[in-house]
Structures are given as C-alpha cells and as structure tokens.
C-alpha cells in the first residue's frame, strides 16, 4: 500500500515539476521535487525504502527527461540509500533535518551532474553553475521539503494506524 502511494506521489510530483513548477521558477531555478521526495522518504523510512524510492524517482526522471538514461537512477538510488542511514539517528524527524539533507543531496547531485555533463566538455563556468543554478535549486528544494516531509509523515502515520487495526 505504501509502495503504491509513494509511486503515485512520485508520478504526480514528476508531472508537477515539469509543468506547474516551470512557471513557478525562483531566481530562474525550479525545485527538485523528486529529490525532495527521496530525501523525505529516506529520512522517515530508512535505507532500503529510501533506495527503492530513489531508484523509482530516478527511473521516472530518466524516462521523462533528457540526458543519458540511468544517470539519475544511479544518483537518486545512492542518495536514498545514503540518507536512509541517518534515519535512525534522527528518529524524531524535524523540518530542519529535511532542509539540511535536501540542500546537501541536491547540491551533491547537481555538482556531479554538472561535472560530467558540462565541466569535462568545457561547456560553461563552474561559478555560474553553482551560483545561478545549483544554489537556487538547493534552497528552493529545501523549502519544498518541509511540507512534503510533513505530508509523508502524516501518510505513514495514517497507514500505520490502519495496519495496526
């Protein structure tokens, strides 16, 4: 049941990211909703579920976006697995944790992406990429991660109660 809800959520967030959020750009950047979902699920559910949702979101991003297939899948899979390790340390999840991990995850993901897609081919300055693309996306995603995390915690709690009954 949870798997189905996460899948539906991933599909809806992908559709929102490519349509509504295109018009809701902040400083030219769009929020990375898929990455926010991976971070929030990994923090609340641990490495295994985090990795699984990372793989799912990565595959959807690869299918729907441009670029070499598999790159997003690998990056998001490992993001989910790595952040999931911290779920036990922050069992009383607070918004600030989601903000910090979102910034860290989006920054690392974009830096790796920039390095392999642009930097090694000599297509654009690193300073521009960091200040005009990566940092605005990190901050925007971090802001989105807070309500998204609350939504996921609420969904988890609701499903847990239902399961106990």
């Amino acid at each position: 049941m949870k798997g189905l809800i996460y899948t539906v959520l991933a599909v809806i967030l992908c559709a929102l990211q490519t349509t509504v959020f295109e018009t809701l750009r902040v400083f030219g950047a769009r929020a990375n909703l898929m990455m926010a979902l991976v971070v929030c699920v990994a923090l609340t559910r641990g490495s295994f579920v985090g990795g699984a949702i990372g793989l799912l979101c990565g595959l959807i991003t690869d299918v729907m976006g441009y670029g070499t297939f598999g790159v997003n899948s690998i990056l998001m899979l490992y993001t989910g697995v790595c952040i999931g390790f911290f779920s036990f340390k922050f069992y009383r999840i607070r918004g600030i944790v989601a903000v910090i991990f979102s910034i860290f995850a989006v920054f690392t993901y974009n830096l790796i992406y920039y390095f392999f897609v642009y930097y090694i081919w000599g297509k654009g300055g690193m300073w521009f990429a960091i200040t005009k693309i990566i940092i605005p996306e990190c901050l925007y995603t971090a802001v989105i991660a807070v309500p998204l995390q609350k939504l996921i915690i609420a969904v988890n709690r609701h499903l847990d109660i239902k399961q106990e009954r």
Partner: protein
Amino acid sequence: MRELFTNKYFILLLVITILLLVITALYTADRKSVTYGEDLVGAIITPFQALFTSATEGIRNFSGYFSDIKELREKNKEMAEQINELSNTVRKLEQYKLENERLRGMLALKDTMEDYGLVAAEVIAKDSGNWFNSFTINKGSADNLAVRQAVITSGGLVGHIYEIGTNWAKVISIIDANSSVGAVIARTRDIAVVESDVELQNQGLCKMTYIGKNVSIMSGDIAETSGLGGIYPKGILIGKVREIRPETAGISQYAILEPAVDFERISTVFVITRYPEE
C-alpha cells in the same frame, strides 16, 4: 569485508547498480526507438502533464483577469493621450511592414514552407531538471512523427525530436548546451555552427562558432540553417547576431545569437514531417 558481501541488501544494491550501468552503456549506443517500459511510463505521465499545464494556464488567465480590471482605469487615461501619438505609430508600423516583407523575401521562408509537411503540436511539459532545455509535445509516432524531425514555430527554428512514444515526443531545443546546428550567415553566406553552453542556455541565447577571423559578420546579421548535418532543412531562420567576440586563441571569432523563438513562452510548435525532396 566478508560480512559486507554476505549482506543481502548490499548484494541487491550491487546488482541494481551493475544493471543500471549496463542499461546506461546500452543507452549510449545509437538506438532507434524507446523501450515498451519507457513508452508506458511516458503514456502514464503525459496525461497528468497535459492536465497540470491546462490547469496552470487556466489559473494564470483567471488571475490575469482581476489584475487587468485594476489597471483598466489607468490604461484608459493613458490611451486617451496615446490617440495623439497614433498617427506616428501608423507611420512606424508601415516601416515595420516593409522591413518584415524584406526579411521574408530575403529568407524565402514563406515560399519554402509551403512545400513542407507540417504537424502542429502543443508543448505539455518542460525538462524535469535545470540542466537541459528540452520539452515534451503532445504528438507522437501515432501522428507520423519520427526521431530527428525538425521542430519550428512561425518565428523560426526550435530544435528536433530526439525521443518518441506513441502519443508524446521529446524535443531538444537549439539553445541546449548539447545541441549543435549547421548554420549560414544570410548576408555573407559564410558557414558556421550554432551551439550553446550552460551560461547562454540559461539566458535563452546561443552562440555561432567557427567563424573565420576575416568574415565580416556584424550585429543584426541573420543566421539560418545551412541544411548540413541531415536534421534541419536549409533556410530556416535561427536568430539574429547580438554581438561578436574573438575566440580565446584569436584565430577565429564567435557571435552571440539571439534566437528568433522565445523559448520561455513556447506553447505551439510545428514538426516538419515531409521535405520537398520526398
């Protein structure tokens, strides 16, 4: 270390990683079509994207209606003053009309396009990340579209289809850093290549490279497709030269190009499905 390799989650992670790397390696090879899985995911998500796009458009129009009422009174006042300037505007419009006719004649775009087969499509989604400038349209192989077909608007060249499903197609725009278009400067007939980088792409611009130092290119020059490369037909308007800069090595120069198409507000495009030679 041995414990790590007996951990079933670690083995699963390793297997998935290897599988993804194999898929990535296979993907980099030149493939003709998408897999059934990709087509299925595309078919599931595109209706959502179409729904959200139309909803966003509706909200934008609705909110615009109220802000328009606020401005109406002020505009009415302004318009009364503007009536006096209308005669001047008409004269300017006559000039624009003449210039437009001259440009159309120079590029012979109108006559050329009559021989092409065009399929109209709506843009339903943009790329999911901030790194690429690609978008999805609501027509696919069911509408006789195919990979590597050129995409244009009434303004000029947009890009080409690089991936296609039954009811959707993904288009890479000419301002994407991974795109390159064979171009020709309309006035001098010198050949160049139009490409972009991460900085220009974010500003909605591109650049025309491999221009010899002796070529007398100037700002305002028009760039059109050269027909070389096999994707884009000859004579489609790409854009206008904004400024000229020397290359670092100094043996050639490049020009910053302002595309004829406004990629921020692109909504309807035409896919060229048939060429005059066919």
